[in-house]
């Protein structure tokens, strides 16, 4: 479009539903994922893994494997500990030694006990299968609460009663300085209670399952003493730090590259044993090596999510006013600490205030070792658990009081004027207008009509129920004080000599579309077409510094720092532009307009210089303006002062088949408020994906170990991944409450869908089965469980 003055105006890109720039390579099969990388002389790794959940290695016979043609090397854990120290973690919690390949005791099914290096992937697998391992089994520690009594065994000798983290208190009356705990507020709240809801709830163990499994290619060049590692990771800079540290190399001797990454959902934050082994072996042999996880390995050995048990007591008055909350959290973290394992349940604690004015809260957290795969961040990472426990209790309260759950929530909401709101749990919520989102949800879902529809269906004998949940989450992580990896992000912006723009971001995406949203931002900032902008990411050799993509931080933190880096370059470019215009234009650099590929004095078309002209001048500055350096490139680091706190309201309707117990999701309405939106199309995609994972958790997903610690859900045959037929069309809408924490106003949205969906579905299912007197049902809501409630009166 053109303005009256004749200038071409670049349409504003921020806020537009722009198609993604990433897609052409992805829809044509032209992208390069880690398994697509082939290097000359590359060798392949395969791991021999434990078949036992717990046991002592008696012997490992590698002779047959080592003798196979094409096998270059076989190493056991005992060999590997000589060149590889125990793996580091990213939290300050006490942690037992965790070796990439265990040298003595196996602690979960799938734990590596040996590695084979061969010239071909099939050969490597054959050779690994030819290794004979003898293990003297020990009792498997599987039942979480039994484990807390030290029974039937200790997973780690040094951790009495299997307590990884024995006791972390949280909530009201805790003196941060002295650690003293004053229970008087909480006790008083419960003393006044007219009704108390008490419930044990399990937020079950899940498998993250990105469709691309984990994978690594590592290449050490002895002549340069330099290691390059390609990893399916969410955070290449953290990979670089951790690999360098364990290899005894400088961070300037390691380059980590995240090529195209096929989904992460938190499980690709970690640096795993296989990554360290690949680095150690390429360093030992001086040849490139590759390891690609197969799906069976993924179920056994990629981190699991959730698995937090809660004992919840909620005190209230009969009018629905909440007085206090007591909650005991027991996290089953599996066999070891991984990078953020121990920290995840602390996020559950942090969010226990929910969206409510709960005046007194006592929370207690215990983390327990068991003979299972370690847990760590899975989409939502601690917050869905907290939301679930609080929302379930709130829904049970409404049911107990015979009140509409929407009205109980409304009665207790934190009010807009109370923000910033300091919670009992130590969070400071940035901004919110919860009632507005609730009202929009009720309107869009036609809540009263839904109730009537449910009642009609029930009269016909059908088991139909409706559920409503509200959530607040913590995103845009965060200040470094709350993130042990560092909570900042880095970006650089370079205007090339021809006026094209190259930017780098430390927020390494794996499906989030950062190339598109970041291009939209820079297009607006510089008034140039998106096509002239290149966003580079995922390579520590190209992106100087970075943290990565997790905790719904790409836009809020990575987007902000990009805008700041762009601002620095723009300021300088404006000075070059003013100089190029000549003194007769009397251009004030700070007031120049960047639009339509031109830079000009507002209202003065004759002043216009093209973007490319100014860029060219900056690199051949004759004359060089006084006090200026040539060139147009700058960078920024930025750290937010606080996290962001998006929120929303989810409403659904379900039906349970009376004869089979099968649960069907009939309707799902989601209102999400993630602050300012850069690209609504991408935000909708994020919400859809989060909903699918949350609904999957509620209805069909669960990692199950048997009493011997064998993984029952070891393939897609047994672990129910949601399919297209499992969902109705989601009905989305939004409110927009910008955050004051960053100049964009963006809060983050990647995990939102996993928070509101689980309590909404369980509430609806309990509602559907209310005639059987059921008050709560633990996820997942498999037909057998529901059938038993219908036909046996069991919950």
């Amino acid at each position, binding site marked *: 479009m053109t303005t009256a003055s004749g200038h071409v105006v670049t349409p504003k890109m921020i806020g537009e539903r722009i198609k993604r720039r990433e*897609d052409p390579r992805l829809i*044509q099969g*032209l992208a390069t994922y880690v*398994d697509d990388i082939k290097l000359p002389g590359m060798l392949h790794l395969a791991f021999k893994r434990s078949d036992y959940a717990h046991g002592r290695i008696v012997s490992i016979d590698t002779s047959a494997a080592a003798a196979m043609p094409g096998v270059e090397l076989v190493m056991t854990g005992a060999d590997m500990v000589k060149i590889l120290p125990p793996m580091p973690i990213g939290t300050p919690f006490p942690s037992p030694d965790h070796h990439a390949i265990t040298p003595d005791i196996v602690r979960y099914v799938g734990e590596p006990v040996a590695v084979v290096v061969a010239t071909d992937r099939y050969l490597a697998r054959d050779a690994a299968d030819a290794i004979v391992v003898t293990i003297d089994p020990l009792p498997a520690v599987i039942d979480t609460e039994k484990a807390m009594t030290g029974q039937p065994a200790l997973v780690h000798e040094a951790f009495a009663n299997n307590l990884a983290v024995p006791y972390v208190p949280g909530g009201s009356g805790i003196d941060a300085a002295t650690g003293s705990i004053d229970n008087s507020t909480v006790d008083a709240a419960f003393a006044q209670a007219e009704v108390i809801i008490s419930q044990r709830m399990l937020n079950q163990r899940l498998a993250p399952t990105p469709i691309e499994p984990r994978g690594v290619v590592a290449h050490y060049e002895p002549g340069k003493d330099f290691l390059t590692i390609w990893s399916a990771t969410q955070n290449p800079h953290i990979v670089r730090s951790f690999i360098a540290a364990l290899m005894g190399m400088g961070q300037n001797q390691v380059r980590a590259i995240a090529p195209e990454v096929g989904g992460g959902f938190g499980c690709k934050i970690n640096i795993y044993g296989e990554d360290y082994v690949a680095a150690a072996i390429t360093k030992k042999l001086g040849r490139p090596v590759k390891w690609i996880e197969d799906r069976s390995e993924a179920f056994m050995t990629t981190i699991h999510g959730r698995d937090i048990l809660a004992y919840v007591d909620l005190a209230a008055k009969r009018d629905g006013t909440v007085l206090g909350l007591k909650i005991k959290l027991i996290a089953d973290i599996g066999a070891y600490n991984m990078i953020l394992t121990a920290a995840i349940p602390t996020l559950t604690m942090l969010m226990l205030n929910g969206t409510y004015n709960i005046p007194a809260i006592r929370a207690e957290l215990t983390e327990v070792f068991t003979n299972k795969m370690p847990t760590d961040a899975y989409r939502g990472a601690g917050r869905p658990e907290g939301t679930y426990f609080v929302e379930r209790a709130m829904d049970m309260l409404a049911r107990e009081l015979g009140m509409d759950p929407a009205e109980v929530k409304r009665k207790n909401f934190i009010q807009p004027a109370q923000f910033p709101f300091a919670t009992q749990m130590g969070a400071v919520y940035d901004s919110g207008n919860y009632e507005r989102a609730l009202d929009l949800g009720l309107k869009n879902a036609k809540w009263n009509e839904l109730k009537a529809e449910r009642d009609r269906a029930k009269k016909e004998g059908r088991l139909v129920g409706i559920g409503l949940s509200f959530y607040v989450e913590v995103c845009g992580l965060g200040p470094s004080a709350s993130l042990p990896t560092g909570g900042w992000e880095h970006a650089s912006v370079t205007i090339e000599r021809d006026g094209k723009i190259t930017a780098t971001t430390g927020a390494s995406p794996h499906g989030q579309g950062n190339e598109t949203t970041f291009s939209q931002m820079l297009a607006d900032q510089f008034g140039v077409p998106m096509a002239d902008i290149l966003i580079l990411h995922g390579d520590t050799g190209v992106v100087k510094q970075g943290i990565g993509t997790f905790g719904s931080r790409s836009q809020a933190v990575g987007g902000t720092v990009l805008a700041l880096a762009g601002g620095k370059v723009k300021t300088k470019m404006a000075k070059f532009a003013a100089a190029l215009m000549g003194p007769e234009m009397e251009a004030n650099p700070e007031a120049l307009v960047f639009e339509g590929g031109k830079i000009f004095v507002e209202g003065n078309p004759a002043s216009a210089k093209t973007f490319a002209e100014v860029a060219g001048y900056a690199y051949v500055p004759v004359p060089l303006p006084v006090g200026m350096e040539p060139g147009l490139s700058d960078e920024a680091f930025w750290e937010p002062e606080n996290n962001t706190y998006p929120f929303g309201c989810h409403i659904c309707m379900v039906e349970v088949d009376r004869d089979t117990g099968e649960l069907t999701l009939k309707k799902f309405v989601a209102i999400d408020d993630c602050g300012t939106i850069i690209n609504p199309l991408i935000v909708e995609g994020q919400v859809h994906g989060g909903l*699918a994972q949350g609904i999957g958790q509620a209805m069909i997903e669960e990692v199950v170990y048997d009493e011997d610690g064998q993984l029952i859900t070891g393939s*897609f045959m047994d672990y129910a991944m949601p399919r297209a037929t499992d969902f109705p069309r989601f009905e989305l809408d939004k409110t927009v409450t910008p955050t004051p924490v960053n100049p964009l106003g963006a809060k983050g949205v990647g995990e939102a869908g996993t928070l509101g969906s689980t309590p909404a579905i369980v509430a609806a299912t309990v509602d559907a089965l209310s005639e059987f007197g059921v008050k709560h049902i633990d996820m997942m809501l498999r037909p057998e469980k529901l059938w038993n409630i219908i036909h046996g009166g069991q919950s």
Partner: protein
Amino acid sequence: MANVPVSITVNGKKRTAEVEPRLLLAHFLRESLGLTGTHVGCDTSQCGACTVLLDGKSAKSCTVFAAQADGSEITTIEGLAPEGGLHPLQQGFWDEHGLQCGYCTPGMILSAVNLLNENPDPSEDEIRAGICGNFCRCTGYQHIVNAIQNAAGQRG
């Protein structure tokens, strides 16, 4: 076991090779021919990331031995559209944001090709049923349904 000769037409080009009898078609395409657009997401024929067209019908190439495909015609994502162009389904996935990480996408698109070949004007339920052999962990499927509707000319 001795290697076996195969002759497979892939994306219109006849390819001959001596392969291990156990070599999976997916690995033949990826490793022997360098067609890495076909992805492997599981070992159990569940996820559908490896879906290709085998004699015009969708097939999970991790569950077919290369030797079994001898004499057949294979279309992979790289060969779906004429060079430089996009197949209507590729265009639909782009237009409707039918992908995020992109890993399931080639297989999902080829399953959708099969679906629309068999049923050019499917209902939403038929679309959902038609792709339920393909997992996507990113999108919640809604934009994928939109993408297929777009390719079927059902969306403005």
